[in-house]
């Protein structure tokens, strides 16, 4: 029995790592076309010719000196994960830009396999690569693959199980002055590490904090000072930052290598449709109507009308109420004598009637349609295009185009989106995005319900949208000035438009749904349980009275207190409650509008609150929650004054 072989897939974002992972393990992992949607790593196992191989898909990284959160995760897997192999996946047609990372992976001293992926795309562009020569120059095994078609995948596995690794990778040589300082540091390092002393020395010279902390434990404390002196010395010689010098050198060597191994052959014709779509989706004028159409059809028509309307109606009435619920209700009504237990299960606020119904009949179809929509956006490469189009607008509210990812994702699930804010560059951006997510971005469940509730009157819907957009920008605009932090810049790689693969979309939506339900369903059940406990003890009615008291000043009926109480557990739970009450005809249109706006703005659900605390810290989490609550109440009051008192109209 062999030991498990541990393999890391490493590479720039958007080179097909995840697709290769799928091809290797047969398991699914999100294949996305946007850097920043996977912040965690995925692990899988494959049995191959009697060997057990563990494969880890790392988030995209550009260099061993991490800048973003994803890069940190990826690097830690290399530094601490004890991999036997690094499979360095590169986009063959962009080899020159990706070789610098390969050089750094070589420097780790861990056996590296270079995988030239997307060979089909490279070929289409008229590029042929002399693999043997490349292998010779780098001293690495080089394999060509088309991972989405599983071409070349077996070659990788064969190479891995046929160890030992007999290659002698060629490390890059930097300028003499730099080499001398590296040498000096190498001699200084006495301890045993998982990566080479050479790379450790280079990273120490580059003032990498994590590496400094790592070596501090085993080494003479002077080593940091020695590294800093060396760095200063070198920067005096070169008059530019050392990181820049090193990056330049790597790119230079990459350029030289590519010269030697690229053969240009005839270009195949690019698909006209794809290049047309690529261009028009970022067009200075046409990009915007298309953006509007994408959101209109994707969010409003598909998620709002189809998901929250048609599907919810169907599942709720046809499946849930007629079929599932009626059967269960009869069974329980007859089978169980205890009134409290009946209440717990099937009465107005029961686990089945309320918790399960909300989760399965109302939230599930909405969230599913949203994640389908989002997955298509992701896989087609539209998200970075959206970032490009919106960067200018987002600068006005202290964010960059990059923030479209968490913000759009927020329309699906604010909790998930809050987690993804960590991919933003600066703390200031992360805080602003978190505030906006908590306040003015309704999640899909909420959005769907609101659209369904407000669809009775297009005026109501328009006013609701207008108020939310207004609040989004006003709060964003002021946050820009009130939240301190460094100015941020925007740069992003725009991948080519790709036609999404249906199987990928479906599996991706499925994995997201699983994540969502693991988090949501228990909360819905707990909420039902808590309400049940609250009701039999009388606390529930007391709380309703307490909440209803201030609400009457905003012109809202007693029942609306329930919506807020539910909304505390999850905004969508509250929204679903609103939907229920609305169907009973409890509210007039004025009340409906005020309530909808307040509920959209209202305190995030518990899960999002917890996520905010986790990502931003306790103090910031509580501050945001307080701000959001006060803001919501004040907005409700203001709307009441304007509509009911000042204008005195009924909508």
């Amino acid at each position: 029995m062999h030991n498990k072989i541990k393999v890391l897939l490493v590479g720039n974002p958007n080179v097909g790592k995840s697709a290769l992972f799928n091809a290797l393990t047969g398991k699914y992992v999100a294949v996305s076309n946007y850097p920043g949607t996977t912040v965690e790593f995925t692990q899988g196992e494959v049995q191959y010719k009697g060997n057990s191989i563990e494969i880890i898909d790392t988030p995209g990284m550009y260099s061993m000196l991490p800048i973003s959160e994803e890069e940190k995760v990826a690097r830690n897997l290399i530094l601490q994960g004890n991999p036997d192999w690094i499979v360095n996946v590169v986009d063959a047609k962009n080899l020159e830009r990706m070789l610098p990372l390969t050089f750094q992976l070589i420097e780790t001293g861990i056996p590296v396999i270079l995988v030239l992926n997307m060979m089909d795309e490279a070929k289409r562009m008229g590029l042929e690569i002399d693999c043997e020569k490349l292998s010779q120059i780098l001293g690495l095994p080089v394999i060509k693959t088309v991972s989405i078609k599983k071409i070349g995948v077996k070659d990788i596995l064969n190479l891995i199980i046929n160890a030992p690794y007999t290659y002698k990778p060629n490390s890059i040589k930097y300028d003499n002055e730099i080499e001398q300082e590296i040498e000096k540091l190498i001699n200084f390092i006495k301890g045993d590490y998982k990566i080479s002393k050479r790379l450790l020395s280079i990273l120490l010279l580059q003032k990498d904090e994590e590496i400094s902390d790592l070596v501090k434990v085993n080494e003479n404390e002077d080593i940091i000072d020695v590294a800093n002196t060396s760095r200063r010395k070198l920067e005096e010689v070169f008059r530019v930052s050392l990181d820049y010098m090193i990056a330049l050198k790597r790119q230079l060597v990459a350029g030289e290598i590519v010269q030697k191994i690229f053969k240009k052959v005839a270009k195949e014709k690019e698909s006209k449709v794809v290049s047309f779509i690529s261009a028009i989706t970022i067009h200075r004028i046409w990009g915007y109507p298309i953006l509007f159409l994408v959101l209109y059809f994707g969010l409003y028509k598909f998620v709002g009308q189809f998901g929250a309307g048609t599907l919810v109606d169907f599942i709720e009435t046809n499946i849930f109420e007629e079929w599932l619920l009626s059967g269960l209700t009869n069974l329980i009504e007859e089978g169980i004598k205890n009134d409290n237990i009946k209440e717990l299960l099937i009465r107005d606020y029961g686990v089945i009637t309320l918790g399960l119904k909300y989760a399965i009949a109302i939230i599930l179809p909405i969230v599913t349609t949203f994640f389908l929509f989002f997955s298509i956006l992701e896989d087609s490469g539209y998200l970075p295009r959206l970032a490009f189009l919106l960067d200018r607008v987002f600068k006005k509210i202290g964010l960059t185009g990059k923030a479209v990812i968490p913000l759009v994702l927020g329309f699906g699930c604010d909790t998930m989106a809050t987690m993804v804010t960590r991919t933003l560059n600066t703390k200031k951006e992360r805080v602003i995005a978190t505030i906006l997510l908590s306040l003015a971005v309704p999640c899909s469940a909420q959005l769907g319900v609101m659209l369904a509730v407000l669809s009775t009157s297009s005026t109501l819907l328009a006013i609701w949208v207008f108020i939310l957009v207004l609040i989004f920008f006003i709060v964003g605009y002021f946050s820009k000035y009130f939240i301190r932090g460094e100015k941020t810049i925007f740069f992003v790689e725009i991948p080519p438009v790709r036609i999404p693969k249906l199987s990928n979309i479906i599996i991706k939506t499925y994995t997201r749904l699983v994540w969502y339900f693991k988090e949501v369903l228990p909360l819905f059940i707990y909420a039902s349980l808590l309400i049940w406990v609250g009701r039999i003890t009388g606390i529930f009615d007391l709380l309703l009275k307490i909440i209803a008291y201030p609400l009457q000043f905003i012109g809202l009926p007693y029942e609306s207190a329930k919506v807020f109480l539910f909304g505390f557990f999850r905004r969508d739970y509250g929204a679903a409650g609103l939907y229920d009450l609305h169907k009973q005809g409890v509210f007039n249109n004025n009340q409906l509008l005020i309530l909808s706006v307040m509920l959209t703005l209202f305190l995030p659900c518990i899960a999002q609150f917890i996520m905010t605390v986790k990502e931003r810290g306790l103090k910031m989490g509580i501050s945001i929650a307080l701000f959001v609550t006060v803001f919501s109440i004040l907005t409700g009051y203001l709307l009441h004054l304007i509509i009911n008192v000042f204008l005195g109209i009924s909508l």
Partner: protein
Amino acid sequence: MTELIEKQEEILEQLWISKNEKNKNSVTYEVLGVSKHSEEISSLQKEGLINLDDEKVWLTEEGDRKGEKVVRRHRLAERLLVDVIDVSGKEIHDTACKLEHYLKEGIEDKVCTLLGHPKTCPHGNKIPPGACCNVDVKVGDKYVVPLSSLKFGQKGKIVFISGISDKNLQSLASMGILPGAKIVVKQTFPSYLFGIGNSEFAVDKTVADAVYVRIEKD
């Protein structure tokens, strides 16, 4: 011809501006802040760069040409300080005053080319064109300009990146946005879109201003 010392250059500069931009052909000793019998004045006169009477001084034809050069150097120095070295405020003028004296012929044109033959100084005053400006227009030689001033379809090579933090510089570098990289501009609104190799990148104005490109003609 002997080298003019700094003070003489300042006088020529002042006289040239007065004549060509303020329509005042002559300037009094009082305004210039020198006396008629000072060393500067007499040596300028000796070299045939100025004429004078008891109250005022004016440029000769050669003095006018020489003055133009000094003004050009001063304003180029200002551009260099603002665009490339990123100096601001009062520093610009004071440093430019010193720097202009070191920009001798030849170097001055190189600076002018590096800056992309700018037409005006940071204060909006016209920079008198030099020989290099005219040559470039005809031959289509190299310019170095920020990426943000390139037009759709223009190609070039990144020469240097300046004006953003080391951390940002490093992230750009790790994506392959580095000196030596060949770029082609694909869009300039709402943000800047350019291709390097077979990849496309979008950047905002701050980055596009920081990336300096030598334009390459087909």
